[in-house]
């Protein structure tokens, strides 16, 4: 999520009202953003990803003007025609097919406007623009170049220009290799031709989504602006253009359209969406009539006409009547709803395995064991190698943050040994247990895996023997109502002739044994350990 910082004075100027600390801290978040802090005349908010229109100080102020009641209702944006054309060649289709553009005239680009423009551009790139992949915005000094402009795909080494933040003329390939923003060519990799925007004299304005040319760099002297937005999704491209141009309109800029693919862009007419009063009232329980509804949505910048909600062109999050309903709720104020519990029938009931887990846990506590909780995430070293056990198939992650947590546990005992290892300087005896799920691969399941509930316990002390724990396991089985038998088994995890498989109803349900000193040495545990592990799920029936 994006955190944006605004100069409080600038915000106040754009809102047209003084904003007290209390308003900034407590009232503004009720509009739908999070107050992050305030320092040295700058206030920070976290803007939710569905509202990129709030990323600029102009857009934020526009929303506040409505929400705080300074000026409510739909704001209309008038556009003139610039007469400039942007030609789009089909050579861009494979690499970055979508583009739109606009002209904004008579903008006073003082320091704060420039700063705001850079901020919103950067934040949109990062969030809504998916790191420039879906959307990239270029902003240019229009008077440095001449239309018509052309958007086309070119061989990376065939076109060269001086990019921003550089003095050197480079071709596209070289920019990718040498320029600080060169990393973005990654988005274009695999394509023979890369996109550029050039003017009528073939001078390069932009190499989207990587870098603009130095030629059209903005300065405080810039009066007229040309904006291009390129990307992979035409709808998102138009939306980003709407957000940028309407932001600049807040600064007094005059928006003019550019002819792109035969259409005049941007189209800043409000969108329309039908919202049924019964639907609103059914969801909010406010019993609104149309007038009340119109007033509330006016507080969020929407208009209302002939039973239709008019959606301002910068609101890109409205795709369903539900989205309008949320704005009605926000405008009404979450704090003004009366929380009420309805009469929805239902009986509290639990999952059988959870009940059985609780009952078994009580028995283990009664035997004097301390419950621990270890992680499902683990590694093969622990699960198999330190146990001197043969490696088995495990559920395995592709991209774990750490090799130590690269697979999902299949057994609990190794994880309990890890707990013992970490607690060696604490008092003994240590009797611990865990009831938890392990993961198994299973071709028969939809997810190709299966959770399995298991119980494991260990005792570690200066003196401890097999019978200390086998007696617990056998008593436990009896109390669960199962007849268990113990069959001697051989496993390199346990001392020879000191481990058994636990058999119930002819099925192998677990193991109990005295841990092999080699295993203890692998873990650097210096006291003897006895351990058991049971398949709890199998014992439930």
């Amino acid at each position, binding site marked *: 999520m994006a955190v944006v910082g605004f100069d409080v004075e600038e915000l106040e100027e754009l809102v047209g009202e003084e904003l007290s600390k209390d308003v900034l801290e407590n009232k503004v978040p009720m509009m739908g953003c999070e107050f992050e802090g305030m320092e040295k005349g700058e206030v920070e908010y976290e803007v939710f*990803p569905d509202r990129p229109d709030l990323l600029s100080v102009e857009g934020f102020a526009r929303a506040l003007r409505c929400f705080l009641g300074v000026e409510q209702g739909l704001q209309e944006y008038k556009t003139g025609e610039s007469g400039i054309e942007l030609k789009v060649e089909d050579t861009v289709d494979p690499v970055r097919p979508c583009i739109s553009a606009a002209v904004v005239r008579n903008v006073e680009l003082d320091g704060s406007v420039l700063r705001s423009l850079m901020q919103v551009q950067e934040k949109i790139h990062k969030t809504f623009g998916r790191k420039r992949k879906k959307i990239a915005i270029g902003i240019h000094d229009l008077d440095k170049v001449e239309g018509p402009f052309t958007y086309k795909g070119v061989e990376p080494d065939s076109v060269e220009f001086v990019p921003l933040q550089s003095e050197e003329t480079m071709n596209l390939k070289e920019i990718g290799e040498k320029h600080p923003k060169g990393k973005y060519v990654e988005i274009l990799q695999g394509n023979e031709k890369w996109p550029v925007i050039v003017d009528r004299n073939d001078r390069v304005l932009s190499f989207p989504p990587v870098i603009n040319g130095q030629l059209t760099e903005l300065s405080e002297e810039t009066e007229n602006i040309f904006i291009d937005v390129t990307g992979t999704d035409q709808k998102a491209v138009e939306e980003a253009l709407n957000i940028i141009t309407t932001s600049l309109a807040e600064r007094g800029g005059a928006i003019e359209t550019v002819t792109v693919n035969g259409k005049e862009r941007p189209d800043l007419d409000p969108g329309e969406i039908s919202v049924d009063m019964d639907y609103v009232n059914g969801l909010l329980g406010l019993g609104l009539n149309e007038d009340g509804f119109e007033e509330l949505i006016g507080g969020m910048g929407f208009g209302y006409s002939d039973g239709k909600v008019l959606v301002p062109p910068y609101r890109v999050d409205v795709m369903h009547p539900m*989205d309008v309903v949320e704005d009605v709720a926000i405008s009404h104020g979450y704090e003004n709803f009366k929380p*009420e519990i309805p009469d929805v029938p239902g009986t509290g009931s639990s*999952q059988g395995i959870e009940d059985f887990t609780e009952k078994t846990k009580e028995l283990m506590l009664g035997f004097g064991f301390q419950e621990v909780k270890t992680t499902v*995430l683990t590694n093969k070293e622990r699960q198999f190698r330190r146990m001197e056990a043969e490696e088995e198939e495990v559920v*395995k*992650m592709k991209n774990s943050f750490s090799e130590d947590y690269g697979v999902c546990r299949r057994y609990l005992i190794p994880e309990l040994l890890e707990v013992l290892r970490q607690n060696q300087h604490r008092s003994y005896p240590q009797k611990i247990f865990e009831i938890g*799920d392990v993961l198994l691969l299973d071709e028969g399941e939809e997810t190709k*895996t299966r959770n399995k509930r298991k119980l494991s316990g260990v005792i570690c002390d200066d003196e401890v023997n097999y019978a200390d724990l086998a007696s617990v396991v056998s008593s436990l089985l009896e109390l669960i109502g199962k007849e268990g038998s113990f069959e001697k088994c051989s496993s390199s995890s346990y001392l020879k002739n000191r481990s058994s498989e636990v058999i119930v109803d002819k099925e192998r349900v677990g193991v109990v044994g005295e841990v092999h000193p080699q295993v203890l040495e692998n873990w650097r545990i210096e006291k003897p350990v006895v351990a058991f592990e049971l398949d709890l799920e199998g014992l439930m029936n």
Partner: protein
Amino acid sequence: MYRLTEEGKKYLKEGLPEKRLMELLEDKEEMGEVKESIEESSIAINWALKNGWIEIKEGTVHLKESPGELELQKALESVNQGEELEKEVKKELEDRNLIEEVREDVVKQAKEKLKEGSISNLTPELIKTGLWREADFKEYDPTKTGKKRYPGRKHILSYYIQDIRRVFFDMGFEEMKGPYVESSFWNMDALFIPQDHPARDMQDTFYMERPEETELPEKGLVESVKKMHEEGSSRSEGWNYSWKEEMAKRPVLRTHTTAVSARKLAEIDPPAKLFSVDKVFRNETLDYSHLPEFMQVEGIVVSEEVTFQNLLGYLKEFYRKLGFEKIRFRPGYFPYTEMSVEPEVYFEEKDEWLEMGGAGIFRPEVTRPLGIDVPVLAWGLGLERLPMIKEGIDDIRNFYYENNLKMLKEVKI
């Protein structure tokens, strides 16, 4: 050595039955209803007749001769005092099962114990022989309570899990479960999260090497979800992109239990109240407050009738039952809810409002493909946050990763 049996002890206290009968007759000389007058009347009459103290005429008991003080009663007293008895009396008492012999080795042990002088522990032998009467018990300092002891304890999180499950049961919610490894379909697509959404980015989500691919649920459901993403519905614009089945089949460790809710929604008919308290996974480096796996609590209410006010009502009640009296609601954002709420609860101890989970009403684009046409209220929170704040735990790793046994044992209930 002899001691009194249970019956013997009783008669020592209450008097032998025949003694009680004779005491009654002293005053009356004759009696019609002996049975009603004393307990164990038949034993009393039997012995009184045998000793020639009474006679029975026409169902009435008459005094023949007063026995005076009963020797047998005195003998019971003597046994109790540990005195020796005449052989005949001893035999009579034994026959009547009023005294029993104490085994010689028991007597011996008791006597040896006595020889030790001042005694620290009372023994069964001293009690059996009655020789405790002669013992001199060592004095303790009863203000000393001995060394610290720890019972087998539940893990601290188990206490919290138990509390939360109880709250849900109280509110009439049914528990649900689902697998740790999920398809992207259930974890994301079914929640109307578009396939290019940043929430699917590698850094947050554990993707799997094994298994490589999951199956998808039945075709009709998959088609509905696909259509909602690509084209929307009569009321929604949808996301307008080409939805790919391969992406939906990518297995992940579930990042939220909302995946479980989605599965359940596809199964049920409204109305329903459901909850889960279960593990979720995030591919995040672990530090003092972040865990790559943690417990998530989730509740959903599915009903034709429910409103936004009801969502707030459930939240208020839920947190009140967890001990938070003051709650307030802020607008929030989650990709699959509209009306999204961030509840904040007030912590007295800290004099601070703290964000406590998230809530909302599922977007119709989520519920419709799952076959649900009524509002679904939903809320959730990370469980570990509760003990961290309430118990003042500043490093969650102590409890989860290290399992500090000292701390786990000493947790206050």
